[in-house]
C-alpha cells in the first residue's frame, strides 16, 4: 500500500514528537519540575501514529494512563500538554487533569484515563452516537495488555458487537501490566483469539513498525467505518521506560531494555524503510528532528513561564451550572 509523502512526513514528525516529548518529560520529572504520577509511551509511538493516521478530528479516541502519545497523535497541542503536565492554569486542562487526564474534546480526544479499562465503555458510547447519527465516524479506544483483563473491557467489546457500533479496540501489548508479565496475567495463550471470540476481526501488527500498524489499523477502521460493527488491532511492542517514572523495573530480563531500544525502535525502523524506498531523504528526516527538538525545548520554556493556578480556581468547572442556592 502506497502512503502519500505528506502522510509519511506527518507520521515521522508525530512519532519523533512523541519520543522527544516523553524523554523530556522524564528528564523534567527527574529534575523535580513535573509533579504527580506519569507513565511514558516511549517505544510505542508507531501504535498511536499508525492508528490515528486514519482518523479525522471528528472521529474520537479514548486513551489510557499512558496517554501522551495517543493525544499527540490525535492532534493535541504539545505546548498545551507540556503546560498541563507542569500544572499550569494555561495547560490544556487548566492544570485540573495532569498527565493522566489530558483531553481535547474539540479534537476528538475523549481523554487519557487514569482508570485501567475506564475508556472502552465510553468509546462504545461515542461509537453508538455515530451509529445513531449515521455520520460514518468511528470511535477508537486504546487498551493495554493489562486493561483487557478488566470486566469493563469485556463488557464494552460484547456490547459493541451487540449494538454493531463502529468501535475500534486497539490493544497494545507492551508485555507488562504494571510489574506483572502478560504470561501470568492473561490466562489464555492467545490474546488475539480471545479478543476475536467476542465476534469481531482483529488485525495484528508489529508495534515497532509504523507501516505494519498503519496497514492493520487501516483494515480495522475501514471495517468499522463501513458499518460492519467493531474491529480490533493487536500490536506488540515493549515500552522503554517503567510502568511509571521511577519504576525500578525489577521485572526486566538482563539486556531486555537495550534490546528494545536497539532492535525494536519505530523511529529507526521508519528511517531504515525510507532509506530503502527513497520516499523521504535523510535530510528531510533530519530537518524534522531539528524542528521537533526546538518545539519541545520551546514547550518546556513556555511551561516554566506559564501562569500558575490560583486557589479560587479549585472549584471552577465542576459543573456547567450548579443552581444550589446556598
Amino acid at each position, binding site marked *: 500500500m502506497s502512503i502519500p509523502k505528506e502522510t509519511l512526513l506527518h507520521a515521522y514528525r508525530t512519532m519523533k514528537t512523541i519520543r522527544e516529548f516523553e524523554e523530556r518529560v522524564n528528564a523534567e520529572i527527574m529534575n523535580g519540575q513535573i509533579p504527580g504520577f506519569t507513565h511514558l509511551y516511549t517505544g510505542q509511538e508507531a501504535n498511536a501514529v499508525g492508528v490515528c493516521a486514519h482518523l479525522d478530528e471528528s472521529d*474520537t479516541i*479514548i486513551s489510557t494512563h499512558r496517554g501522551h502519545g495517543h493525544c499527540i497523535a490525535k492532534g493535541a497541542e504539545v505546548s498545551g500538554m507540556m503546560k498541563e503536565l507542569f500544572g499550569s492554569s494555561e*495547560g*490544556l*486542562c*487548566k*492544570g*485540573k*487533569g495532569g498527565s493522566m*487526564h489530558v*483531553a*481535547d*474534546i*474539540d479534537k476528538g480526544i*475523549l*481523554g487519557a*484515563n*487514569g*482508570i485501567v479499562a*475506564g475508556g*472502552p*465503555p*465510553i*468509546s*462504545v*458510547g*461515542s*461509537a*453508538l*452516537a*455515530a451509529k*445513531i447519527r449515521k455520520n460514518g465516524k468511528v*470511535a477508537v479506544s486504546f487498551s493495554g495488555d493489562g486493561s483487557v483483563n478488566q*470486566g*469493563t473491557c469485556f*463488557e*464494552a467489546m*460484547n*456490547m459493541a458487537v*451487540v*449494538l454493531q457500533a463502529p468501535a475500534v479496540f486497539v490493544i497494545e501489548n507492551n508485555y507488562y501490566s504494571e510489574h506483572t508479565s502478560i504470561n501470568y496475567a492473561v490466562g489464555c495463550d492467545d490474546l488475539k483469539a480471545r479478543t476475536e471470540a467476542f465476534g469481531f476481526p482483529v488485525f495484528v501488527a508489529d508495534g515497532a513498525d509504523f507501516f505494519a500498524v498503519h496497514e492493520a489499523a487501516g483494515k480495522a477502521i475501514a471495517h468499522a467505518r463501513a458499518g460492519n460493527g467493531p474491529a480490533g488491532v493487536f500490536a506488540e511492542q515493549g515500552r522503554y521506560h517503567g510502568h511509571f517514572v521511577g519504576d525500578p523495573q525489577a521485572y526486566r530480563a538482563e539486556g531486555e531494555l537495550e534490546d528494545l531500544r536497539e532492535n525494536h525502535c519505530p523511529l529507526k525502523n521508519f528511517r531504515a524503510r525510507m532509506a530503502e524506498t527513497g520516499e523521504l531523504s535523510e535530510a528531510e528526516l533530519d530537518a524534522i528532528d531539528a524542528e521537533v527538538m526546538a518545539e519541545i525545548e520551546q514547550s518546556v520554556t513556555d511551561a516554566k513561564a506559564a501562569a500558575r493556578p490560583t486557589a479560587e480556581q479549585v472549584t*471552577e*468547572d*465542576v*459543573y*456547567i*451550572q*450548579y*443552581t*444550589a*442556592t*446556598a
Partner: protein
Amino acid sequence: MPEKTMRDAINEALHQAMEQDDSVFVIGEDVAGCSGSAGDVGAVGGVFGVTEGIYHRWPDRCIDTPISESAIVGAAAGAALVGMRPVAEIMFADFIGVCMDQIVNQMAKFRYMFGGKSRCPAVIRFSSGGGFSAAGQHSQAMYQVMTSFPGLKVVVPSNAYDAKGLMLSAIQDDDPVLFFEPKILYQETAEVPDEIYTIPFGEANFVREGDDVTVVAFGQMVPKAAAVIDALGEEGISCDLIDPRTTSPLDENAILESVEATGRLVIVDEAPPRCGLTADIAGLAADKAFSSLKAPIKQVSAPHSPTPFSPELEAAYLPDAEKITAAIKATLA
C-alpha cells in the same frame, strides 16, 4: 387536570423529550425488551414500564443492552461527550455497585479534569428504595451515597408532578444527572399537566407549611411525613414539610430559613444513618442555624443494617408514621 401515576409521568416526559430533540435516546436492559427473541420487540418498556412505547416510535433511539451496567453508563457518558443526550436506565439503584467507576470516576469528573472544556449531558435513571420485600440487593436508596460526589446532580422526586418536571429538566441539563425514582411511588398518582414543564434543580418544595417544627424528607418519605403532619395538625401541631427534590444541588436556604423560623428540625430518610442525608442536614443546621434551635435535631432513618426481606422485618426497618411522629413530638417535649 389529568391524574397520572409517577410511572406514566416519567414516561410522558421521556416521550416529549424525544419528540423535541433527536439527540435524546434511551438505553438499558429491557428498555425495549424482547430483542432477539420470538416476542414482540418493544413489548416490555423497562421492568417497571417507564420506557413503554418508546421503541415503537423510535426504534433507533431505544436501545436494549446486554446486562452490562458499566458499559451502559459508559456508553451514555461517551455518547453525551460527543453531543447526544442519553437517558440510561440502571434497573435498580443497588447496581451502582457494578458501575460506580463509570459514574464516579468518569462522567462526574470529565468536565473538571478536562479543564471545563467538555460537557456530559447524560441522565442515568434508577429505581430506588425499599418497600417491596426485595431484600438487600434491590432495595437501597443510594442517592445519599451519590450526593457526596462533586460533578453529579442528584434528583429524588416524591410525586408524579415533580417527577415529570424534574425529568424534563434533567434531560435539558448539560451536566450529568442521576435520577432516583422511588419505586414504591411508581403507581401513586397526582395531577400532572399534559404540557411540557420543567422544575429547576436546587429549589425545594414546601409540601406543608407550619410554625412549630421543620421536617425535611426525601423521596418516599415525603408522603409518609405529610400524612403524619396532617394527623398532628389535629393535635394543634403545625410543621413545615420541605422536599428538597434534588440532593445535589441542595436548597440549603429553604431549610435554614425554615429552621430559623421554627427552631426545631426533624430530618427523615429511608437510608441508613451513617454519612447520610439526615446527618448532612443536621450538620448544616448545627453549623448555620445553631442559635435558632430550641431543641435537639432529630434524625429518622433506617438502622445501620442492610434492608431485610421479610415484610415484618422491612416494616420495622423503614421509617414509619410512628417513628416520624415520635421524632416530631420529641422536639416539642
